[in-house]
């Protein structure tokens, strides 16, 4: 069954199956990730300029940030502003 609710308004509840402490020696909370990991595990919320394609803009961001790889999350029409 598909929910009639807008997906970004669905509220979820967490239920606990078992309890355990996490070992602070391994990993990091995402917001405390060491700064070298920021680009590596990062996502930009970009306001796309009109004109260039989503693909082109993605390549620009990759170059600006000197990133090894970049990919966008859903094509926005290049000529969306007529």
């Amino acid at each position, binding site marked *: 069954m*598909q929910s*009639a*609710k*807008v*997906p*970004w308004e669905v509220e*979820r*509840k*967490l*239920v*606990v*199956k*078992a*309890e*355990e*402490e*996490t*070992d602070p020696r*391994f*990993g*990091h*909370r*995402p*917001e405390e*990730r060491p*700064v070298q990991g*920021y*680009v*590596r*595990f*990062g*996502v*930009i*919320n*970009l*306001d*796309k*300029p*009109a004109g260039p394609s*989503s693909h082109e*803009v*993605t390549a*620009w*961001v990759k170059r*600006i*940030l000197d*990133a*090894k*790889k*970049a*990919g*966008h*999350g*859903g*094509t*926005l*029409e290049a000529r*969306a*502003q*007529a």
Partner: protein
Amino acid sequence: MTGVLPIALEEATKAVQALLLSGKEYVCVMRLHAETPEDRIKSVLEEFRGTIYQRPPVRASVSRRLRQRRIYDLNLLETDGKNVLFKVGCQAGTYIRKLCHDVGEVLGCGAHMRELRRTRAGPFAEGEGLMNLHEISYLYGLWRETQDESFPRKFINPMEKALELLPKIFIRDSAVDALCHGASLAAPGVLSLDTEIETNDAVAVFTQKGEAVALAKALASTEQILKMDHGFVAKSQRVLMPRGVYPKAWRGAL
């Protein structure tokens, strides 16, 4: 500016599939080909709520079969002569240019899309840290120059943000590295999970610290998983965390 285009960097590109499949929201200016009373426009727009059928446009990059798309919400905001401003919340892969055309057909006068701005792509919304190219380049420059770590945090979101709308399963430290090696998630590894997960749902698997481990497919429902003491509960679809962040703890690891 045409709005929200989330761009994933390096390892985070593995999480992009979650965004491609998430719902989008747009504000659109539609141009009608004849003057039409506002109440008529309003009622026709409302008819497009729910499930619609769309044939992708000729120049689309997908197969041009007629397909169903879900319109979660569609509201008239303003009219000005033949220009109609509306807001639409829709399933991924809905063509708004096509939607305008089809609304025009139903109205009888014809219509086309004049301007479009995306206000949301899944968890990424317009009001939440949207940056333009100039700002990104400026902040990156400041970061490089000053080495001040507060700058990257101003414009780069952790990839976990991209998974915000997916149902989640949190797991034990000891279960993490097995998933990083591609293993399925077994019931004893689960610590907590979201309600209303159904078999075959897309889920995201997290550490207790909130780091993304993998995108997965649920092999059981929330209720079933809570009762299971052995067996697999989710099949890994895309591993997001590199190996070796957490220690190997599965049998035979030493």
